[in-house]
């Protein structure tokens, strides 16, 4: 049981939680995720750790209400308890001094991108960041990102914040203007696919962090299988970050829909 210390609603469907987890706060590294469960019949749900405070013994998670399980989590308030929380899981991001980093975040994917941006900046890199979403209220952590980026561009589908356009348009502007050494992109699978196609054109090494279906998160079930460079990998223990140019995104998109029927049924029931 882990206590929720603070909760903020970042938008109608996106909530930020500060959760008591002293050991994870201490041991986690950027790129790591946790698995949590709400209720005794709750589902195990992976979420990337956004931030941590070792002194206070807390971690920060950001979740978008997209289904039954994320909905249950979003209903919790400060003072409530998370039934189960385990981590940190997954391989940490390889943070190093690369020179200039292009960071691309889509929707709630901005949350897992944040600790990576922060760590790359702290490692002495220049960081250019593009935040993209459908509309203004889905752009999160903009101020925090500005704090750790040399420059931030916001792109929205409807132009309600920043400029109207896609994440890849913002990305290409930076690519054409600056010499980008590495790129990291996190967001919906389809967004990461197009980011990968864009950076491939310019031959920029690119990492993405995958949010596949998982049950245990420790290598046991294999639900998170993904094809990377022609080989099957497990996102939970081999990832969650992979070379974007080697991922079979079409298979990934297909696999993310594996439980679509069951998920739709569950949503309409509750």
């Amino acid at each position, binding site marked *: 049981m882990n206590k929720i210390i603070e909760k903020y609603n970042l938008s109608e469907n996106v909530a930020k939680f500060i959760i008591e987890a002293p*050991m*994870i706060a201490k*041991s986690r590294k950027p790129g790591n995720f946790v698995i949590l*469960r709400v*209720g005794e*019949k*709750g*589902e*195990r749900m992976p979420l990337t750790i956004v931030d941590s405070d070792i002194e206070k013994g807390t971690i920060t998670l950001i979740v978008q209400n997209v289904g*039954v*399980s994320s909905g*249950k989590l979003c209903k919790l308030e400060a003072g409530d308890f998370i*039934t*189960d*929380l*385990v*981590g*940190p*899981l997954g391989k940490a991001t390889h943070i190093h001094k690369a020179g200039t980093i292009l960071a691309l975040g889509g929707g709630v994917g901005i949350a897992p991108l944040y600790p990576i941006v922060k760590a790359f900046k702290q490692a002495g890199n220049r960081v250019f960041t593009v935040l993209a979403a459908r509309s203004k209220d889905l752009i999160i952590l903009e101020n925090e990102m500005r704090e750790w980026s040399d420059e931030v561009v916001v792109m929205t589908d409807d132009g309600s914040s920043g400029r109207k356009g896609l994440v890849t348009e913002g990305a290409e502007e930076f690519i054409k203007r600056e010499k980008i050494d590495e790129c990291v992109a996190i967001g919906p699978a389809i967004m990461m696919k197009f980011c990968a196609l864009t950076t491939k054109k310019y031959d920029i090494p690119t990492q993405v962090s995958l949010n596949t279906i998982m*049950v*245990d998160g*420790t*290598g*046991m*079930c*294999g*639900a998170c*299988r*993904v*094809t990377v460079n022609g080989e*099957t990998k*497990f996102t939970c*223990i081999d990832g969650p970050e992979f070379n974007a140019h080697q991922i079979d995104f079409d*298979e990934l998109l*297909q*696999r993310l*829909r*594996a*439980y679509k029927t*069951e*998920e739709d049924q*569950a949503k309409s029931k509750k």
Partner: protein
Amino acid sequence: MTDNKDKLTQERNVSWRVELRNSVPAKDRTAIPRVKMTEVEPQDRIKSQTCEVNCGLSSEQAVIEARRCMDCVNPTCIEGCPVSINIPKFVKQIEAQKFLDAAATLKEYSALPAVCGRVCPQEKQCELRCFYLEKMKKEPVAIGYLERFAADYERQSGKIQIPKVAAGNGIKVAAIGSGPSSLSFAGDMIKLGYEVTVFEALHEIGGVLKYGIPEFRLPNSVVDVELENLRGMGVNFEKNFVVGRTASFEDLKELGYKAFFVGSGAGLPNFMNIPGENLNGVMSSNEYLTRVNLMYANQSDSDTPVMLGKRVAVIGGGNTAMDAVRTSKRLGAERSIIIYRRSLEEMPARLEEIKHAQEEGIEFMNLASPIEYKPDANGRVAKARLQRMQLGEPDASGRRRPVPIDGDIVELDVDLVIVAIGVSPNPLIPACLPGLKMTRYGTIEVNEETMQSSVPEIFAGGDIVRGGATVILAMGDGRRAAACMHRYLQEKYVK
């Protein structure tokens, strides 16, 4: 060893046992036929995932079966038991109707008698070495059924006895993983007076006993009682804790842990790496069984989904394959088919599981192996292409090797494929301990007698060492590791 022999002889010569032995002539004992386990009828049991197939023995049945045991001078059955249970002693206690004493005897040797009585392959262990089989070519004493009877009797009596533990010695040890090897280790170490904490990554204690073995074979409630027993003896359980990640070995040493037993299991499912294996509707048996057994995905109030299939193919011939295929039948499949590359004779699953599966209408497509899966329009698996096999020369395992029959390929309509072809060691722990010596199979290298690894304070056992075995072999490892860790710690910290 002689000490142990002397102890067995002494116990055999106590007056009640001598009297009991002499009370029934040997020929009367051997004339009794082996008891038949009452089972729920197949058409009834396939309606429920939680309905246990075997009903257990009644007290009357147990006493009569126990009477068959000759209480041999040289009890070879004990040699067949990986944890060396004093089998004649508990069997004779049953014959004498001292059922609670029989349960106490079992608990001296095993942390999980109700579990072992259900899932051990007794036909390959104690019962294989029974006098009846070895010397008379008759059906052996039903030692497994009797073990289960004694453990169940105690549980149902409400008079659960907590085994005696030595006074605490203040030395902290940790078990990593909470499956059978760790639980067996923890039970022995707590009896020796250590402070024992079991760390588990999942949200439930029990490892494969909870996520793997289905309730129709091993009810979770039975496992829970055995866990309560260990708690009662003072074992501390920490769930949602991944040793090496949540805290490092160094962190735990700072907290005072002096030695570790790694029983983290073979938690990495193998796939065949054939085309179409990553289609939706193809999954590991670990995933399928975990969703059902651990997450209760088949129950309507569970948030975890599970894919249901009408035509389910399970690849493999082991116990896990049987568990998965029988589960699919219970979840409503019209056809549930085992696809195994050798023949029924070479199948590694327990005979009882194969028999139960056959009774339940499971189809067996032997001498066939998938080479490709094809999707439907929605990208879900729709067809399995199978290569027909024939048996060739024996391989290293002594079983005849399956050889493809050229050009003999068949297609099978499927909508769910469960891959149950074995597991590999979980790499999480070794990845956190760069100094630990591993084998080329990714298992932890240990001294087979002491279960000690290349890092002196780290012992290991179960599937992380064996790469995929049985509950009872894992428990045997846990016992040996406990005995040797005890010696190691006594020499290091006490003398």
